[in-house]
């Protein structure tokens, strides 16, 4: 219980924070918002890194698969978002 409560506090506050910022994103940028938020949800990558050094071979394989997929998410997400955003231009 002594670790759960602080974590729940952080979770709840982060949801409210996300709510406040994201409602301000204009419809124009909804697709980049999805791909960009996808990229940061690849944060699981750090969980995968921690498990990849386990002494249990099954854990290592699971973590390796997670690492590959999360990295695709991170690298693919940020790069494709950048590609899209660089097209949103204003003439003159």
């Amino acid at each position, binding site marked *: 219980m002594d670790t759960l409560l602080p974590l729940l506090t952080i979770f709840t506050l982060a949801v409210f924070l996300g709510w406040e910022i994201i409602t301000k994103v204009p419809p124009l940028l909804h697709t980049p918002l*999805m791909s960009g938020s996808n990229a940061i949800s690849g944060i699981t*990558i750090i969980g995968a890194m921690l498990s*990849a050094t386990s002494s249990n071979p099954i854990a290592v394989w699971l973590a390796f698969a997670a690492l590959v997929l999360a990295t695709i998410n991170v690298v693919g*997400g940020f790069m494709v978002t950048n590609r899209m955003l660089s*097209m949103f231009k204003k003439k003159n």
Partner: protein
Amino acid sequence: MDNGLINLIYLCASVLFVLGIRGLTHPRTAIRGNRLGATGMLLAVIATSLDSQVFGAGAGGLGVILAGIALGGGIGATLALRIQLTAMPEMVALLNAFGGVASALVAGAVLVEASAPSTQSVVAMVVSGIIGSVTFWGSLVAFDKLRGLLLPDAPVTFPGQQVLNLVLALVALGCGAALVIDPSMTEAYVALVVVASVLGVLLTIPIGGADMPVAIALLNSYSGLAAASTGFVLNNNILIITGSLVGASGIILTMIMCKAMNRSLVNVLVGAIAASDVKKTDADKVYEGRVKQTSAEEVAMLLETATRVVIVPGYGLAVSQAQHQVRDLANLLESRGVTVEYAIHPVAGRMPGHMNVLLAEADVDYDKLKDMDTINPSFGQTDVSIVIGANDIVNPDARTDPQSPIAGMPILDVDKSTSVIVIKRSLSPGFAGVPNPLFAADNTLMLFDDAKKAVVDLTAALKESG
């Protein structure tokens, strides 16, 4: 390295993620925002590699990590650079899938290696496993539907579907409960993942093509929640903060999409619009003798005298990849002093913001891309509205016929402009399966053709006349 310092770096990374998303509130700051987010991720990865569990693991462990990152990075970069922008809905679906399953895999890895995990940790593993698997398979189904590979675009429903889904969810939770009681029973986790996978497929097949914006946004939210839940497994703040930001983002987009169709989330999720047997208006009665067909030349003459033109893109524009041709037409009109704007309905296309990305790709100034609430009051002063490959989002029945399946859905009021040109292959109904009285209206002319070909012909005719 000291855990305090690592957590401090995690905090900095979290702040960068928040600033990154805040950057997305304006196109001018969006690129910088995306870079801030990427910087945050780099910091988080560096901090993690300094963790004694990673850094002290020796060459073998580090080798696994480097190999995984190199492989994933290579695939991710290739995908991001190669993907066609018309295929962005598929790309987002894939990214959702990978994010979700990565969380479920990490939870599984922790379960296998932990000797005596705390109850909190096991409960979180169960949540990660269920949400992650549902996200993975649900996103793959969405990907398949968007690509048109195995499954039909239309909702797939069968009797007892909801009951079966409920039973599967309960079985998955039951496996989870068994795992919480005895965390050494790893078979329970495998069973839970299998059941949740089937559930993910069954939850997504009833969602039809035009409802995909909702499905994609919701799965986006799930992938965030799965990451947050993995944060509870690892007692890790940054996963919780980031996951909940993404979770909130997906839920907000889901709500915006549902509101733009005047349907409840439940209604979308059970594929109700196609299954419903609301009175089907007879298409012949609506169209008979009233539909006026036109030609590119005739439309060109109409455009010659116009001072304000609004272009309304729909999914048909994406299918036909006509965005560059549309831009050429708009440029030609603008060179003759015509004001051209684009009216973007929130659910036009297959994911939130789909039309904006397509038109931005064609170098259309983003100031000209107007959302529904901004542009609707101006249709009364519009000489010509050109509807390209859109149907339900411009159906006036939504405003006037309370019996219609799309009653109450906010639409683009193109029927209020002086003339309406509808570019469409045929009179076939849109996703809602209802006839569109706009096509039979006095001020509407139908140009039956493929979107790209019609726009090219139109531009040529306009050039000739000038």
